[in-house]
């Protein structure tokens, strides 16, 4: 390991492509879609320039992308793909096949709003709605985190106790296209972190007369699904350990939950992805005014770290949840309902105030965040334990 940290300017998409290059998977099957395109383009460059020896399958749709990934992964290969929004929706059927057949595929999602109306900008709904597909699901705030989570995802997915696919998301344009400083890792570091040998598993390959994807009826289906749940529970600990190991290797602190000025806080912001940056900026502004406030950033969305969240939020009076995702007719924002479930029935927990914001790439300004912070405090003061609002739109 070299002691010198290399710093390079990269967009979020480029950071993902460069990280994948270090992993050098066997197969990448992908179909371009804005704002994921740069990942695929950059990686095709690496393939065609001989910088990696990956088989790049330029499929004709995202459905075929995920299908090819499943075929490749069952053959024993290390597999990567990337998509966004409509592409992820088209993959949806095969997401379940991938997890059900225990294929440790890694998927980068350039989070983008769903149509209609058609929009190409950042919003995390596409990834959040895949929460029940039995995929490990992570979010990154910056190009740096995109870079790190790319490598980390392989480690988690391929762990023998997990063997589930993993996806990580960065918000379209806000992260994917913004040029940021990225501390890179060396090839050696990545190879030490992710072993070069391929996972040991039943493989679809010559010499192994094995049947994959058989028809499973009422008599066995539930047992097989239950094994997925157990793998998902294992993924929690595996992620924690992998993040610890990654922190030591890279010298950058990486945790399931990032806690910012929460030690003495009475109020907290909860967010994930790029919104977390804004939340931290507001915390600084509010602290300057004497407010006791901190920010919590969720990096691991599935398996949901319920106990960690309970621990961190215990003692907080009110939590303001900034959720860049759309849900309709729901009891709360997508992340808010998960947090509410984690806190339910516990004492000394905050009131939860969810705010749907930033849809279709709309910017949530710092004054707006301050405003909802005050609003949450008011709600809390009059004893409202759970509220959900939209913020930052024309009334």
């Amino acid at each position, binding site marked *: 390991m070299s002691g010198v940290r290399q710093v390079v300017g990269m967009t979020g998409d480029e950071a993902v492509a460069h990280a994948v290059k270090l992993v050098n998977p066997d197969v990448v099957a992908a179909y371009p879609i804005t704002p994921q395109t740069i990942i695929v383009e950059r990686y095709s460059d690496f393939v065609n320039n001989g910088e990696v020896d990956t088989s790049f399958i330029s499929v004709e749709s995202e459905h075929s992308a995920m299908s090819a990934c499943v075929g490749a992964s069952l053959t024993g290969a290390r597999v990567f793909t990337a998509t966004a929004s409509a592409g992820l929706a088209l993959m949806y059927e095969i997401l379940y096949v991938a997890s059900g057949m225990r294929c440790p595929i890694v998927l980068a999602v350039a989070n983008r709003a769903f149509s209609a109306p058609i929009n190409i900008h950042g919003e995390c709904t596409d990834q959040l709605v895949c929460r029940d597909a039995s995929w490990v699901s992570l979010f990154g705030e910056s190009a740096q985190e995109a870079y790190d989570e790319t490598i980390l995802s392989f480690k988690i997915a391929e762990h023998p106790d997990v063997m589930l696919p993993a996806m990580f998301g960065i918000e379209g344009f806000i992260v994917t296209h913004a040029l940021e400083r990225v501390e890179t890792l060396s090839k050696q570091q990545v190879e030490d972190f992710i072993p070069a040998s*391929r996972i040991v598993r039943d493989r679809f390959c010559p010499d192994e007369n094995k049947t994959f994807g058989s*028809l499973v009826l009422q008599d066995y289906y539930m047992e097989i699904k239950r094994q997925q749940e157990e793998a998902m529970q294992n993924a929690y600990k595996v992620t924690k350990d992998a993040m610890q190991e990654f922190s030591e290797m890279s010298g950058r602190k990486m945790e399931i939950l990032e806690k910012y000025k929460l030690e003495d806080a009475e109020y907290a912001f909860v967010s994930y992805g790029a919104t977390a940056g804004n939340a931290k900026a507001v915390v600084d502004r509010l602290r300057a005014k004497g407010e006791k406030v901190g920010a919590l950033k969720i990096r691991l969305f599935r398996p949901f770290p319920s106990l960690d969240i309970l621990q961190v939020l215990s003692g907080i009076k009110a939590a303001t949840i900034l959720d860049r995702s759309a849900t309709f007719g729901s009891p709360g924002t997508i992340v808010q309902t998960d947090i509410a479930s984690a806190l339910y029935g516990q004492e000394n927990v905050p009131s939860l105030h969810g705010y749907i914001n930033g849809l279709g790439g709309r910017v949530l300004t710092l004054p707006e965040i301050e405003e909802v912070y005050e609003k949450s405090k008011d709600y809390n003061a009059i004893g409202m334990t759970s509220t959900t609002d939209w913020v930052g739109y024309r009334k």
Partner: protein
Amino acid sequence: MSIVLPKVSVKDLQEWSKLGEVFTSGHRLCAGCGAGAMARQVTLAAKALGDPYMFVNATGCLEVASTVYPYTAWDAPWLHNAFENAAATASGAIEAMKAMQRKGLMRERNVNMIVFGGDGGTYDIGLQSLSGAIERGHDFLYVCYNNGAYMNCLSLDTHILTKNGLKRVLDVKLGEEVYAFNQETRELVLKECSGIFNNGIKEIYELKTLHHSIKTTMNHPYLTVQRSRNKEENTLVWKTLDELKPGDEIIVLKNLNIGQSFTFEEIEISKKGDYKVHKINEIKLPEKSSSDLMEFLGLFLGDGWIRTHKAETGFSLPENSDARAKLVSLSKKLFNLEPSTISKNDVYLYSVNITRFIESLDFGQGAKNKKVPSWIFTLPQEEKEAFVKGLMQSDGYIIGRSNRYVSASFELLKTLRLLLQTMNYRVGKIHQQTKKKGTFVVYRQLLEDSTFGYICFSMKKGSNVDKYPAQTKQRDFLADNNDFSSEKIVSIEFVKEEPTIDFRIEGEHNFIADGIVVHNTGIQRSSGTPQGAATTTSPPGSVIPGKIVWQKPLAEIMASHDIPTFTASPAYPRDLMAKVQAGLKHDGPAFMLVDSPCNLGQRYAPDISMEIAKLAVKTCFFPLFYTYKEEWVLTGISSRLAKNPDRKLPIEDFLKPQGRFRHLFKPEWKNKLIEIQDTIDEKWARLVKKSTCI
């Protein structure tokens, strides 16, 4: 580079058969399934090449039937992903192996990849994935085994006998209990309806017996009497409409003995003191049906009307008629109400609550829309008799033992006919008559042409089954049965194309439609495997003649990707296996369309699958050929037929043994048959013209 077909001799087949099966026994494909034969031939041809082989299989019969967890019929690496993505899945596996071989993670060698897909997974939903994989040049042989699907169904104006009375086929709900024929005890039983399928527009035929009639598709199965030389062996078997002819006997409902009085739903009634109600005829409404009430309602249905806003229930019953006297006495008895008999021709009951009560009973509005409501069907015999008695006093005529009922409402005649069929009556067909404009009827002239109908019926005589068992049973196979009897078919005629529907019934797999015992969907499927569900929504194999053959030109579409494309039939294994080997030896993708006969879908006996497959080739319905770029080559039988055109069989030979085409042999479809032959001849001539023969 052109394609070279290896020569496969009978000796080769003998040698290869010793290699051991790849697609092993124990799979659950149906007896007679062409896909099983096809899979064995393809896998064995691959094994004979010596290189390792792998299979990707799209969702479909072959996959479902061969890998019921925790078992598998595949002694080979085998992978199933989903329905529409078998080709993309194979792409992934091929690229993965290439990459891992490049990196030294896998031993380097040639692997033969074969992808299986059914017609649904290839022609329709999987075509994009297949085309994409071929464009990328992934080296596999895609084998599409093409069979058809089938469906059988009822016309929408069919009536079904359910626990809650007679219902139009559209009104039957999932989970509702319907009456069925228990094939063991031969009794009437109630069974749950567990599936309803909308089957689209189909050709509908009407089957008539002396007392019954029903409209269904040609492939709908009926319970029929199979007579044998030895009377002891006479038995009941299911036959589809196309296998039946006039004179055959089918099983019909004779009697519905297990009826109960009907409890009426409470309706809103007006009382004195309600808003604007100062005066009201206090009457008591019946809670349950009774013989008296049913006779009253029979009179009402024939001659009555209601005007709720006037609180008026009127009956057109002239003075001094027996019916008028009966109505007066019934009104007093039932409602304690004295009717107004001032008018010479009409009788009035004035009670708003009676009008509301009658309105709630669902007799239909207006003279032309009257009907027998569904709840009457499950009443006890004596209440139904009373209802018919009342009805007969209105518009009925009694001539000796025979009864005739006249009405302008054909729905009423149809439902009355079905009601009588549950009461052990003989009922004739519905006759139709038209009276010209200007004809004098009762006391007025008709202002326009008026169409009305009538039916004739009579009580069945008790049969002497105890005294003359053999004779009565010759006439009615189920003479000693309380609920059912057998009736001879009088005619089967084409009606028109119209929307259709069908059910799945738990346990007995049959139900009673228009008084006739008919089978439900999924008859030939083994114990309702998932494939049964899939075929009820799949479009091919429909009985509409125009669509029987010429679906997408799949072989041509694939050939236009500039890849070797083969057609083959499991009836000609040497030809098929030679093509499999040629396809696998080719460097790059290859496609093979296999005609895979399905005895369930095509409706023929399971032991003639290979005969059917041969006839498809010999009639040039499914020519055997291969093509690559400019080259078109006819092979095997097809090549011989091209050289000796007089050996080509007429298409009838292929169509005739299959139930699904039998309706084409009726005189009205003669032109269709000629049209089909012309199309085949034209396509065949075109193929011969551009092909060489080997």
